[in-house]
């Protein structure tokens, strides 16, 4: 697994370059539009991946993911309306700077920081995924079971205001994941005689219903006639070297925070950008400028939200466990092409794995160029009324679901899931917890059952193996820290 043992010429094939450029442009425009984030950008592009090569498909989705994270800052800065949840922190200083007639400069800080964050995340992916995969090759079923459980605990404790509702979301996701043919015994579980459920609930249908349809329903219930902007003045996004040097420290801080946060399932770019913003303010020489258009206040969260992309790709590629809804869809693209991400990816499909690493860095550079050249154009997407935007996104999402399996059953499923998700969102249930549990369900159940077969039904297998015991202790430490934090907060609340 030599990092340089890769045919770089294959990365620059026309199809791969076109896929990166197209993915970036779609990500930018979708990220720009308030309410539509990286997940929807990736969902909308998924149907195109069926007729593409595996590398081009994955790079297109990664480019869209990256582009959407930067695109989210465009509406945050120009209008004060965050395009994605991750861009909420950017509003704090981006919009005040724009109101000082410096919108182009604010976008320049955002673009530069997003690019540095993206590259940093890409390097974390490059240098962390391979060692993690090397370690994971030594893992067996008990370790994978415990890693799955750790992912569920992380997502349940971190992703919703109510821990119980997060836990309910996790259990529901695990339950839906059990539908279909039991690979151990051939028993049919919860299929109710439907052939469409033999292979389980369609992941694309579930993801699209949960994230795209429910978002559309939210848009429909809000002010549909809102036109976010009437026109956008010409914006120059260039920065001088001195200006760039001025944001280097918060950018690096945001990059480190974003990469680390991205590694944890369920946390995502939103919390990362806030952590980065708060810490950048604490460490700044001019904290009083924060909230009034500080370049540091733009750079830190923007670097963080792009750095999470690389971080979230690490567990996906090295362990086969997605760290966010967007990476869950990218996992779907791997599966569409008959490739299972995980430790064996680096031996079975090494060219693809390294192509993804280096393509990720290339996609970040393309995002920078696209941001410099077409930010003006994409800012104009804000002039489209939701009256037209909702039908466009809805029909594209429908195409995405249908193309995944060619089943009308999946369309009905996505619609039902979309309606249910709309209400669950309103009631503060955690959709990321649900979806990650759904994906982890077969991994957890199968590893548990195989572990019990290996140990003749003895649970001691989870404490007698050194790797398993280490993971178990890490889980215990994480749970202990979470409980301690909760107990410490309680007296303050009362």
């Amino acid at each position, binding site marked *: 697994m030599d990092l340089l043992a890769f045919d770089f010429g294959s990365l620059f094939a026309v199809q791969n370059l076109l896929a990166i450029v197209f993915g970036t442009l779609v990500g930018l425009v979708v990220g720009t539009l308030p309410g539509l984030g990286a997940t929807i950008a990736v969902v909308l592009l998924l*149907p*195109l991946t*069926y*007729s593409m090569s595996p590398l081009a498909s994955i790079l297109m989705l990664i480019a869209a993911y990256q582009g959407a994270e930067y695109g989210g800052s465009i509406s945050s800065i120009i209008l004060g309306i965050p395009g994605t949840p991750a861009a909420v922190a950017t509003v704090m200083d981006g919009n005040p700077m724009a109101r000082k007639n410096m919108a182009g400069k604010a976008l320049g800080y955002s673009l530069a920081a997003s690019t540095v964050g993206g590259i940093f995340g890409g390097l974390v992916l490059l240098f962390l995924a391979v060692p993690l995969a090397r370690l994971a090759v030594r893992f067996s079923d008990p370790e994978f079971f415990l890693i799955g459980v750790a992912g569920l605990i992380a997502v349940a404790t971190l992703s919703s205001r*109510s821990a*119980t*509702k997060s*836990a*309910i979301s996790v*259990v*529901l996701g*695990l*339950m839906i994941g*059990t539908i279909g043919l*039991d690979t*151990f*015994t*051939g*028993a*049919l*579980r*919860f299929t109710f005689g439907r052939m469409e459920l033999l292979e389980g609930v369609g992941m694309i249908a579930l993801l699209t219903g949960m994230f795209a349809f429910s978002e*559309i*329903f939210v848009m*429909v*219930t809000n002010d*549909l*006639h809102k036109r976010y902007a009437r026109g956008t003045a010409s914006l120059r996004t260039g920065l001088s070297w001195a200006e760039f040097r001025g944001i280097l420290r918060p950018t690096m801080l945001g990059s480190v925070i974003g990469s680390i946060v991205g590694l944890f399932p369920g946390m995502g770019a939103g919390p990362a950008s806030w952590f980065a913003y708060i810490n950048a303010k604490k460490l700044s020489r001019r904290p009083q400028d924060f909230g009034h258009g500080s370049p540091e206040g733009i750079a830190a969260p923007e670097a963080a939200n792009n750095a999470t992309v690389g971080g979230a790709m690490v567990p996906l590629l090295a362990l086969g466990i997605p760290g966010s809804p967007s990476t869950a869809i990218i996992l779907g693209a791997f599966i569409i092409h008959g490739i299972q991400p995980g430790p064996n990816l680096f031996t079975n499909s090494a060219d693809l794995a390294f192509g993804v690493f280096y393509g990720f860095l290339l996609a970040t550079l393309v995002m920078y160029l696209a941001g410099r050249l077409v930010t003006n154009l994409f800012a104009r997407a804000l002039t489209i009324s*939701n*009256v*037209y935007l*909702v*039908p*466009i996104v*809805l*029909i594209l999402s*429908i*195409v995405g679901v*249908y*193309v995944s399996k*060619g089943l*009308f059953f999946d*369309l*009905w499923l996505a*619609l039902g899931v979309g*309606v249910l998700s*709309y*209400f*669950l969102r*309103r*009631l503060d249930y955690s959709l990321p917890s649900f979806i990650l549990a759904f994906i982890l369900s077969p991994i957890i*159940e199968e590893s*548990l*059952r*195989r572990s*019990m*077969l290996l140990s*003749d*039904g003895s649970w001691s297998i989870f404490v007698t193996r050194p790797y398993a015991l280490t993971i178990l202790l890490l889980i215990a430490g994480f749970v202990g820290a979470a409980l301690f934090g909760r107990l410490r907060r309680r007296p303050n609340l009362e």
Partner: protein
Amino acid sequence: MSARLANVLVLAIFIAAGLVYLWVSRQIMAGNPAAGIGPVQFPGALAALLVVLCAVEMVRTLRAAPEAERIEIPPRLVATVVLTGAFFALWSVVGRFYPLAAGFFAVLVLVYQPGRPTPRGLALAAGLAVAFAAGLWLVFGLAFGVRLD
């Protein structure tokens, strides 16, 4: 409907779903129950966990002070869901995705427009719908060879 009532209703539905799931899981024919954990135990444990968690949350919700927030079902949401369902039903019977998608697009735009549609509004909706469907065909049908009919 108040948010509290909606919460209680959803939790009651989840408890019922957990019990049905548990009951159905008991009907699964386990191939070799002696060999470790079979196909029944994992779902059974999940169902039990769901019921317990929902019961805990329900007690907490009922004991909490009533929230001012209300959960409404706006008519536009109902219209969107019904029209989407009608589009699926028609598409599955008739085929011909692109003309139907154009029609669906136009109807949605008209439903979302305030007041009665004007001739100009109708023409604009129709023109955009045709252009959008043509764009879909160019990308999916022609460039990527995706079959949608």
